[in-house]
């Protein structure tokens, strides 16, 4: 027998096999049927500027003064429309719609250049914001805080701006603006199949004479809309909360409800990330079983999802790691500290942080391609905290100090005494197996007669661990510590 015989043999495989491979570009088909997302995550950050105003407000509700325009994206083609059950397939129509979608997706790609300074910021800030609360769940969005800080830099000048530029690793405001714009675009997707939007808005006190140019720059380069109205009024608080809920898919309703601005507020900067994606290969619901998670507060029984697949398995001096990919790119990384090592310790470990924030994991030396038997607890973790203290630790101090802060680009005169009075950061990440379609698509690699690889490994997340969600740009949208899968 030779290779031509194999070619002929493949030619004559059964019709249903050939048709099956033709009809189901599996991922396209699945979007049409999907009922649940593999992972959904949201974060909101609200930075509040306070100060002293000369007179109370006069009853205006939120009025838009600069509106961001998001890029238009062709929707992901709905297969049901082109391939109606029982009807003729409109392949041409489908391909035209698919090409239009693809073109828009490609148009969003950006060359991010050297991201080393960014990775340093991600690692440093993750350590700052994720440690210090041992035993609790904690979720932090490095990209979200990056966007909030970039906009704060645009609103400030002098040393207030200089401290932010230094933390974010940018030499000039122009460079930072360009980078923020690239990052925004590289992470933007809203096509009906995947939602990934870094949304921002500014809420200004109607008594502040704002600088329209600055607001226009924020709309154009940072895709942030600006509104003004009466601070402390129910109308404005409602408008802000509605905006937050809308941007975060209602996932942070409880946390958004806590965000209220009082009449002293001069401006609030709200930034959100909403990310909803489906696993590339779902967990089979039938394989989900109760098992014990050894949390810091004691053992708890929780649902563990199981999957066996061939994939890269990574390790370092104190951890092991695997990823679970999303349909449209990006992945969730799970870092399991070695026995006796806490997630906190891992966050202080240079090697682990290098691993977590390196976009190109192919370069990692300690990796092996083998069968990984994953056991991942279903979890729903959230946290809400004030970024203020952490930002000060990271060297951003002047914006908090009425004697030193410089918010002159924001206002058209009279900017003295404006300070950042609060910076709320709330985030939630929920993961689950796929619902009803799971059984058909679960990967049990080589369940048939083919020869398995020589080695396999169990990867059981049954003790506190770290996770990181990288978005379509490969950069971290969310980083978190899970101490209790069911929430604090």
């Amino acid at each position, binding site marked *: *027998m030779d290779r*031509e015989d194999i*070619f*002929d043999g493949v030619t004559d495989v059964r*019709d249903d096999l050939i*048709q*099956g491979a033709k009809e189901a570009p599996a*991922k396209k088909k699945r979007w049409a049927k999907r009922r649940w997302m593999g992972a959904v995550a949201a974060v909101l950050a609200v930075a509040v500027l306070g100060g002293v105003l000369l007179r109370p407000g006069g009853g205006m509700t939120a009025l838009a003064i600069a509106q961001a325009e998001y890029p238009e994206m062709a929707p992901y083609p709905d297969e049901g429309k082109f391939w109606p059950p029982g009807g003729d397939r409109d392949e041409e129509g489908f391909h035209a719609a698919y090409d239009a979608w693809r073109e828009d997706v490609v148009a969003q790609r950006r060359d991010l250049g050297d991201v080393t300074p960014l990775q340093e910021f991600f690692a440093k800030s993750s350590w700052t914001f994720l440690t210090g609360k041992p035993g609790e769940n904690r979720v932090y969005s490095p990209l979200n805080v990056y966007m909030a800080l970039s906009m704060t830099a645009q609103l400030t000048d002098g040393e207030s701006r200089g401290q932010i530029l230094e933390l974010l690793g940018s030499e000039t405001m122009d460079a930072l603006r360009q980078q923020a714009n690239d990052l925004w675009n590289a992470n933007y997707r809203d096509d009906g199949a995947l939602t990934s939007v870094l949304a921002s808005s500014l809420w200004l006190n109607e008594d502040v004479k704002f600088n329209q140019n600055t607001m226009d720059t924020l709309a154009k380069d940072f895709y942030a809309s600006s509104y003004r109205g009466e601070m402390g009024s129910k109308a404005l608080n409602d408008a802000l909360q509605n905006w937050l809920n809308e941007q975060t898919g209602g996932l942070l309703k409880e946390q958004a409800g806590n965000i209220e601005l009082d009449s002293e507020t001069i401006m609030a900067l709200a930034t959100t990330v909403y990310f909803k994606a489906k696993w590339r290969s779902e967990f089979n619901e039938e394989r989900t079983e109760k098992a014990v998670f050894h949390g810091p507060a004691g053992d708890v029984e929780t649902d563990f999802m199981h999957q066996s697949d061939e994939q890269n398995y990574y390790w370092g001096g104190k951890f092991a790691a695997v990823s679970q990919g*999303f349909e449209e790119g990006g992945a969730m990384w799970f870092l399991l500290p070695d026995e006796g090592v806490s997630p906190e310790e891992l966050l202080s470990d240079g090697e682990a942080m290098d691993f977590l924030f390196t976009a190109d994991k192919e370069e990692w030396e300690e990796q092996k391609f083998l069968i990984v038997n994953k056991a991942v607890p279903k979890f729903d973790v959230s946290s809400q905290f004030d970024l203020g203290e952490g930002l000060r630790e990271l060297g951003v101090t002047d914006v908090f100090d009425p004697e030193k802060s410089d918010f002159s680009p924001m206002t058209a005169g009279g900017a003295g005494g404006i300070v950042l009075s609060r910076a709320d950061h709330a985030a939630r990440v929920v993961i689950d197996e796929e619902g009803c379609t799971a059984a058909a698509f679960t990967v049990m690699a080589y369940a048939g007669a083919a020869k398995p690889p020589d080695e396999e490994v169990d990867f059981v997340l049954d003790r506190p661990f770290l996770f990181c969600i990288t978005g379509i740009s490969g950069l971290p949208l969310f980083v978190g510590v899970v101490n209790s899968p069911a929430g604090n």
Partner: protein
Amino acid sequence: MDDLAIVELYHRRSERAIAESDKKYGPLCRSIALRLLGVREDAEECVNDTWHAAWNKMPPDRPRALGAFLGRITRNLSISRWRRDHAQKRYEGMEVLLSELEDCVPAPDSVEEAVGRAQLSAAISAWLDGLTEEDRRLFLRRYWYGDGVKELAEAAGMGANALAQRLLRLRRGLRAFLETEGVF
């Protein structure tokens, strides 16, 4: 037009059968031929020959899956063309595909009797049945439809290297299966 109606046209010797086949399955056959041969003119000839062959096969054939039936003819015509001309012409797609399929060839064993094409296909079908849906699709997209590794990787949302590695494991898996089953 649905497949049964097209097949019926062949049986009635209506030349419209060819126009309808081209309309419905022309893109599929053209893409297979072009991927295998890489030369547009030759691929086009191959597709025209496909309709001619289909005309000669129906009747008596009454294929249930017309797309697979026609695509299969295109594959057969493509490899025939390669066998005939590859000394003079370079059909790159076919060369690459065949060199990959070399990995699936079981180690020779003189004791066993060589199997026929039908038996081999049945064995490969059985092996495909045992794969996960995703692996089965990847294998067939690559080795039946001739999809490029890059486009396949993009569609599957994975890196080209990861896909190449996966395909390699699948090919070795097929060889191991054929050896275990005594198909030489």
